[in-house]
């Protein structure tokens, strides 16, 4: 017990709540408010069918985020691998029980809820790798068995998700994993070696792609190739952004979205609606909002007192960044069309819940910044971790 004793005992739930980084929570709520306003617009000036549920989901997710934040960070350390294993099981589960949506097998129906296990994996992997690199020295981090294990942790879910086939999510899982390898202290030489190996895999991946996926890539490389077909979404999206100009056409005045030229204007392409109605100013405001959120995540990581919370905060922040970058770059025509939502703004529950859980973990890292973490990384059960134990 003594090993994990809190330095400043006697904090109640109220005291814990005070330690939550409320500015970060407010920034997330603000982003969700932007989403609410844009979903209201995308529905032609209606709360239904998206804006209202979007706000409600954020509220529900907020409860989850708070719960996650208030749970002792040591509990999350202990549960890192089990959570990863559970997520992996769910991904395997959709192979057999999943519903096919948008040409890919990703959804698992649990009662009235539809969940995408591959979304949860993005956070579960961060958790598992942070745990993996916790309390090591440099030579341990670079030992071959540990490296192989880390690679397996990344590759197994990434390949399973790619098989679904959901290339965007698979790429994001892979990218998140690689970032954590780098943050975790893999030597530059090994990292370069991985880079070359990955490059060699590109042709193999290309032949493994489905036709529509190859189409998207080809269309991206040559936008004029098929303006009516595969290139239509990307082109209409660029028209939406470009026609917004500096200050936009005005709220609810977007023609591309309201007249049906923008596809999926309430989900993956909502950034185009923002850019059309509020122009460059609106787009930059949203990007600034995201930068601020990333800054807070980064700061928490920087102030962390141990490797697990450090890597967790940097990893979640990086995952969040990946969502933002992949979505905006896709909508702005910088990368091929991949199905990645704009965090806290696009309509759709799983991504928001995933990120709320992720930020819950980051907040927990801040709340429990002062607890003593066990330095033993053997995975031995580390005693009861609960609020009661902290008292």
């Amino acid at each position, binding site marked *: 017990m003594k090993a994990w004793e809190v330095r400043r005992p006697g904090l109640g739930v109220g005291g814990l709540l005070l330690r939550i980084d409320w500015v970060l929570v407010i920034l997330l709520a603000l982003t969700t408010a932007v989403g609410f306003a844009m979903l209201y617009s995308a529905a032609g000036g209606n709360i239904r069918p998206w804006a209202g549920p979007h706000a409600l989901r954020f509220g529900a997710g907020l409860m989850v985020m708070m719960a996650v934040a208030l749970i002792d960070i040591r509990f999350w350390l202990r549960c890192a691998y089990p959570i990863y294993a559970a997520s992996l099981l769910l991904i395997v589960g959709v192979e057999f029980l999943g519903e096919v949506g948008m040409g890919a097998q990703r959804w698992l129906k649990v009662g009235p809820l539809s969940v995408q296990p591959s979304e949860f994996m993005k956070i579960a992997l961060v958790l598992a790798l942070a745990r993996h690199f916790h309390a*090591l*020295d*440099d030579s341990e*981090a670079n030992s071959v068995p540990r490296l192989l294990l880390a690679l397996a942790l990344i590759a197994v879910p990434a390949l399973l998700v790619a098989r679904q086939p959901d290339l965007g999510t698979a790429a994001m899982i892979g990218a998140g994993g690689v*970032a954590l390898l*780098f*943050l*975790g*202290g893999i030597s530059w030489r090994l990292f370069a070696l991985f880079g070359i190996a990955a490059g060699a895999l590109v042709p193999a991946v290309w032949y493994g792609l489905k036709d529509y996926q190859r189409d998207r890539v080809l269309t991206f490389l040559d936008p004029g190739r098929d303006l009516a077909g595969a290139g239509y979404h990307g082109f*209409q999206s*660029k*028209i*939406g*952004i*470009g*026609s*917004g*100009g*500096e200050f936009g056409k005005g709220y609810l005045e977007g*023609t*591309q979205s309201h*007249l*049906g*030229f923008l596809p999926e204007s309430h989900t993956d392409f909502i950034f185009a609606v923002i*850019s*059309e109605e509020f*122009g*460059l100013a609106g*787009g*930059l405001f949203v*990007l600034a909002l*995201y*930068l601020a959120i*990333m800054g807070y995540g*980064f700061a928490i*990581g*920087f102030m962390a007192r141990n*490797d697990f919370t*450090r*890597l967790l905060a*940097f990893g979640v922040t*990086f995952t969040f*960044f990946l969502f*933002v*970058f992949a979505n*905006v*770059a896709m909508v*702005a*025509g*910088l990368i091929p069309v991949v199905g990645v939502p704009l965090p806290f703004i696009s309509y759709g529950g799983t991504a928001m819940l995933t990120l709320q859980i992720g930020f819950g973990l980051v907040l927990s890292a801040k709340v429990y910044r002062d607890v003593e973490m066990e330095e033993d990384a053997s995975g031995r059960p580390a005693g009861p971790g609960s609020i009661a134990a902290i008292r």
Partner: protein
Amino acid sequence: MAGVSSRTQLIRRRALLVGGVQVGLIGLLAGRLVQLQVVEGERYSRRAEDNRTAERPLAPERGEILDRRGRPLARNRETYRLLLVPEKAGPIDVALDEIGRLATLGPTARERVRRAVQKQPGFEPVVVLDDMSWEEMARLSLAIAEREGIFTNAAQRRIYPLGPAAAHAIGYVGRVSQKDLERSDSASLLRMPDFRIGKTGVERTQDETLRGAAGTRLMEITSTGRQRRELGRQEGLSGETLRLTLDAGLQRFAAGLFGKETGAAVLMDVRSGGLLATVSAPSFDPGAFHDGIADRQEWLSLAGDPLHPLSNRAVSGQYAPGSTFKIAVALAALEARVVSADQRFFCNGVHELGTGRFHCWRRGGHGHVDLFKALQQSCDIYFYEIAQRTGIDRIAAMARKLGLGAATGIELPGEHDGLIPTKAWKRKARDESWQVGETLLAGIGQGYVLATPLQLATMTARLANGAHAVLPRLIGGGNAPELKIDRRFLRIVRKGLAAVTGSRRGTAWNARIEEAGFEMAGKTGTSQVRRISRLERRLGVRKNEDLPREQRDHALFVGYAPADKPRYAAAVVVEHGGSGSKAAAPIARDLLLAAQKAETAAS
């Protein structure tokens, strides 16, 4: 940082690196936004505008067609229609049943609607009922007020007050065909679902004048082409009102004169060439073509009719002019000075040429015949004689001066040239040399000679006015060039024609106008449809009345009135009507009398 392990420092260093990359990439996104929205913003704005807007043509109102006194020959009427929007009206058969309970809806109309629904996008309205009265429209509007996807509206419909009486001259409008689209350069206007184009008659030849200019509506559209609202409109220009030389009363009267007969009549002002009436029988209802497909059955029955009601015989019917051509032969002979007016020939009923025998219509012959008597009694022997002396080429030259042998250029479609043979023509067309016997046949308007009723009326008008080579027309006025025929010769021929109706021995005495001051002069013609063989002649020529209809002679008459101071010329052809004096002359008489009476009534 003192007391911080090297591993912590490594992770922080790398985090800074990764963070830097993240900020850099977000910066890249911001740069991309600047590129799209500021640098290329204008280009994308145009694309968005192109996306969102579409120009739709606005149909101009078609110009009216009036007669010479301003009475309508073709006008537009507001008509009420019932329309259905397929995507809003629900299952099509249910909707049609519903409408069928409120109004009469035949199986052909149902079929047409069903076909249209399959062809068009779901948001484009389909006309279910057309041409409803205001009362019917009001009743239906009330009944369907709550029903989504079915509504009534008003549209323009072309109305022809004279109906079949002027169908060939005025023509009709109908749906735009693929051929019409290929001919025209204003395709966007023609592609409008309610647009109607002139299909024949003046409606066709003057279509561009009557059509007007399309306006445009700038519409906001969705990605599927649905129109959301009007952004702006530029009204089109209505078509011009067209005033014709036709007289509605005379036209209707002329059409009535034919009864069950087939043929054509043309009534012309001899000074201007303007047509007061032009009739072709049998006729058809020009209003029936408005909806095209719906009346396909009717169209097929018209097009397949052996009597060809759709063809305008006045301009496209080519007939052997028979004895009416003797006017041209007489003038040619006088001009060639191969005969003088008082020179006589003896008619014993037969004219021999080599081994050939050419008969006069009067078996016993006319005895001594001069030009006056030859025209009055239509002696064939006299004209064989002078035709042979004049020669075919000089006859042809005179015929052309009178307006035969070439299309007159009237503002009607389908006009034919007729045929005035020459030696050169025969060599070219038949690769044979001209036979003198053929000149003799041409001398009585048989053989190769062909003319349209309109050309015969033109010939008569030029003879009657004695000075101007008038051209027939339906629109406007203009100066006709001088007629290059010696007026003395024209007077001589007119004197002969006056005797045709004006003397007891004239061939058309029975069809004379008895009222003083209104007298008619003219020339009868009977053109053979079949050849009379020598054997048949010996056995006795069968009377026309005994022959089947299609073998009977065509009856012709050309004339003008008043005989001493001509104002109106008429040409009448009654197909298989028998003799010109009995079938054609009375029609010309009634027409010329009515024209003169109409003039005195108006002034």
